[in-house]
C-alpha cells in the first residue's frame, strides 16, 4: 500500500512544506545509543586515561605473576610487561606507553635485577638497558603506528561526516524542490478546474443579464438563448460541485486511512453498480464481465464500486468507440481478490504508468503524451487512495503479448480473520 499512500500523502506534504525531509533524512541519522557508545569510546581514548591505565596494566602483571614470583622466569615477566606496553601504546599512544615502559623496567629491576627486592636506580646492567630499550622502542613504534591509524580514522570520519552532510542537504533541497513543484502543479490543477466552469457560469449569467437589458433579440430568440445559457450555468455548477466533491473525497480518504470496513459482498452486484454509474461513458463500447455468479468476498463494496467506476470511466473515455472493455474479477491466492479492467485503447506507455496515478504530475505527463491522456483527472488519484485505504494496490500494466490496450488492476485483501473467505469462487492454489 506504500505507493498509494504516497500519492495521497503528497497532497498533504505539499501543504506543509518541509514535512517530508524528516523522512528523507531519517535513515542516515544515527540511533542515540550508537552515538552514546561513540562518546564513551572517545572519552576512554583520551591520553589522560592512558597514564592510570599504564599503572593498572603493570600492577595487573604484578598481581598475576607476583604470588608465584620466584618460579616466574624473567622472560615470562618481560614478555607480559611488553604486552602491557604494546597495548597501552596501541590504545593511548607514545607518551602513556613511556610511563608503562618505565614502570615495566622498574618492575623488572625490582624483582629480577640484583639486589633483588629493591629498586636500584643505576641503569648499568645489560638487563636494565635491554629491558628499558625494548619497552621504549615498542612504545615509540606502536605509538606512532597507532597515532597514524587514528589520524587516518579521524580523517575518514570527517570525510564521512562531510559526505553525509552534503547528502542530507541534497535530499533536503530535493524534498523542497519536489514539494514546491507539487505545490505549483496542485495550484495549476485546482485553479484550472475551478476557473473553467466558473468562467462559463459568469459568462452565461452576465450574457443573460445583457440579453434582458438590451432587448436585442426577438422575444422567442431571447427566450431560447436564455434557456440555453441557464442550462450551461446548471451544468457547470454541477461540474464545480463534482470537482469539490472529488477534493473532499480525497481528503476524507486521507483522513480515514487505515479505517477499513468490509461486508460480505456479492462481487457481481458491486460490478453491476459500477457499470450502471458509468453507463453514459460506456454506451459506445461492448462490455464483457468475467465474474462467477456466487463470487462473494469480504471487502468494502462501496470502495470496489467507486474504484471500478473510475477505471470504467477512463476505459470508456480513452479507448475508441466500438471496442471491447473487459472486467475480470477473481480471487488471487487465499487472502486477496483482484479486479481488472482491460480496454483496447492505445495503452499507457511504461514511462508514465506511475505518473498517471498522481494527478499532480499531470502537467508533466501532458508534455510527454497526447492531449487525451493528459485529461486524466482526479479519478485515478482518488481510486488509488481508496484502494490504499483498504490495504490494497492499484496499478496499470500492458495487456497480454500481442494485445493492444491498458489493463488496470486492483487487488484488495479480504477483511476479517475468521472464516471471511470468498465462498463462491474456488480458491486457486497457485
Amino acid at each position, binding site marked *: 500500500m506504500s505507493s498509494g499512500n504516497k500519492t495521497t500523502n503528497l497532497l498533504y506534504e505539499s501543504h506543509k512544506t518541509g514535512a517530508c525531509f524528516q523522512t528523507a533524512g531519517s535513515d542516515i541519522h544515527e540511533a542515540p545509543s550508537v552515538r552514546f557508545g561513540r562518546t564513551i569510546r572517545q572519552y576512554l581514548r583520551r591520553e589522560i586515561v592512558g597514564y592510570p591505565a599504564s599503572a593498572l596494566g603493570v600492577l595487573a602483571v604484578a598481581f598475576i605473576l607476583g604470588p608465584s614470583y620466584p618460579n616466574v622466569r624473567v622472560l615470562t615477566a618481560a614478555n607480559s610487561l611488553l604486552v602491557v606496553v604494546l597495548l597501552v601504546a596501541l590504545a593511548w599512544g607514545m607518551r602513556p606507553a613511556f610511563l608503562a615502559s618505565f614502570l615495566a623496567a622498574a618492575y623488572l629491576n625490582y624483582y629480577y635485577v640484583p639486589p633483588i627486592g629493591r629498586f636500584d636506580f643505576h641503569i648499568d646492567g645489560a638487563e636494565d638497558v635491554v629491558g628499558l630499550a625494548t619497552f621504549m622502542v615498542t612504545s615509540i613504534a606502536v605509538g606512532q603506528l597507532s597515532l597514524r591509524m587514528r589520524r587516518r580514522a579521524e580523517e575518514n570520519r570527517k570525510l564521512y561526516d562531510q559526505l553525509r552532510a552534503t547528502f542530507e542537504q541534497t535530499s533536503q533541497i530535493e524534498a523542497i524542490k519536489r514539494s514546491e513543484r507539487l505545490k505549483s502543479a496542485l495550484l495549476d490543477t485546482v*485553479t484550472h478546474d475551478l*476557473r*473553467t*466552469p*466558473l*468562467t*462559463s*457560469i*459568469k*459568462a*452565461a449569467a*452576465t*450574457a443573460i*443579464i*445583457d*440579453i434582458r437589458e*438590451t432587448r*436585442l*433579440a426577438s422575444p422567442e*430568440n*431571447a427566450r431560447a*438563448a436564455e434557456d*440555453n*445559457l441557464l442550462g*450551461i450555468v446548471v*451544468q*457547470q455548477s454541477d461540474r464545480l460541485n463534482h470537482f469539490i466533491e472529488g477534493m473532499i473525497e480525497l481528503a476524507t480518504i486521507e483522513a480515514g486511512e487505515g479505517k477499513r470496513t468490509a461486508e460480505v459482498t456479492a462481487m457481481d452486484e458491486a460490478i453491476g453498480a459500477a457499470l450502471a454509474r458509468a453507463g453514459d461513458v460506456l454506451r459506445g463500447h461492448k462490455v464483457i464481465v468475467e465474474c462467477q455468479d456466487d463470487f462473494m468476498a469480504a471487502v468494502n463494496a462501496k470502495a470496489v464500486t467507486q474504484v471500478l467506476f473510475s477505471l470504467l470511466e477512463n476505459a470508456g473515455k480513452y479507448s475508441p468507440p466500438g471496442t471491447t472493455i473487459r472486467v475480470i474479477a477473481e480471487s488471487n491466492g487465499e487472502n486477496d481478490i483482484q479486479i481488472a479492467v482491460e480496454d483496447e485503447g492505445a495503452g499507457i506507455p511504461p514511462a508514465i504508468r506511475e505518473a498517471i496515478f498522481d494527478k499532480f504530475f499531470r502537467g508533466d505527463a501532458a508534455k510527454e503524451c497526447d*492531449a487525451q491522456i493528459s485529461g486524466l483527472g482526479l479519478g485515478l488519484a482518488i481510486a488509488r487512495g481508496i484502494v490504499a485505504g483498504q490495504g490494497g494496490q492499484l496499478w496499470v500494466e500492458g495487456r497480454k503479448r500481442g494485445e493492444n490496450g491498458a489493463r488496470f488492476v486492483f487487488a484488495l485483501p479480504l477483511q476479517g480473520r475468521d472464516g471471511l473467505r470468498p465462498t463462491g469462487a474456488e480458491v486457486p492454489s497457485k
Partner: protein
Amino acid sequence: MISGTKILVVDDEPQITEVLRTSFAAHGYEVQVADDGKIALEIFWRWRPDLVITDLSMPNMGGLALCQEVRSASDIPIIVLSVRDQEATKVQILESGADDYVTKPFGMDELLARVRSALRRTSTMPLPSEVVELGDFLLDAAAHRVKIKGAQVHLTPKEFDLLSYLLRHAGRVLTHKMLLAAVWGRSFADEPDTVRVLVRQLRRKIEPDPAIPTYLQTEPSIGYRFEPGK
C-alpha cells in the same frame, strides 16, 4: 452595423464557446466556433471573419501561433481570452498582433464592449491624417497642437508623439515595448522606466486627476490603454 458581422470564437472548452456563441448570436452577430488553432485557421481562410476571439492554451495550435498566422494575413481585430497567470504570454501575444485581452472569468458585458470597441476601430481606422479628432481629444500634427475638450494643452515633442500614437491606437492595449518602439524608434531595449516617466509627465498635462487616470489607463504589468472619452 452589427448584423452580419462575423466573429470566430476559439476555445477548447465547449461550454465557453457555447456561451459566447449564444450571446453573440442574440446580438445579431454571425458566429462560428473552433476548439483549437488549426481548425480556427481553416475557418479563418474559408469564412473570412471580421473578428477573432481566442483562448491562449489549446491543443494542437495555441492562441499565440493562431494570432501570428491571422495577423500575417489580415488586419482584423483579435481579442485574447486569458487567465491572470499568463502575464508573459499576454505581452507576447499583444506584441504579435492581438488588439486586446479579456481576463477569465469575464463578464459578457465587458467582452461585448471590447468587441464593439475593436470593431469600431477597424471601421473608422484613422488614416495617417494630419488631424485626429477622437473623444475629448483633437490633435493637429502639422500645427503641433492638442486640445482637450476644446482647451489647448502644451506638450513637449516626445509627449506629443506619445499622445499621437495613443490616439491612433485608442482602446488597444499597448505594451511598454510597443510604446518604446513607436516614440523612440527603439525596439531592441526593454526600458519600461523610460515609458513610465513620459507617461507620468503626459498624465500631469492631460488628466483631470493624474492620480486616477481616466484617459491613459495602466494595464498592470502589461502596459497602457488609451480611452479618449466619449
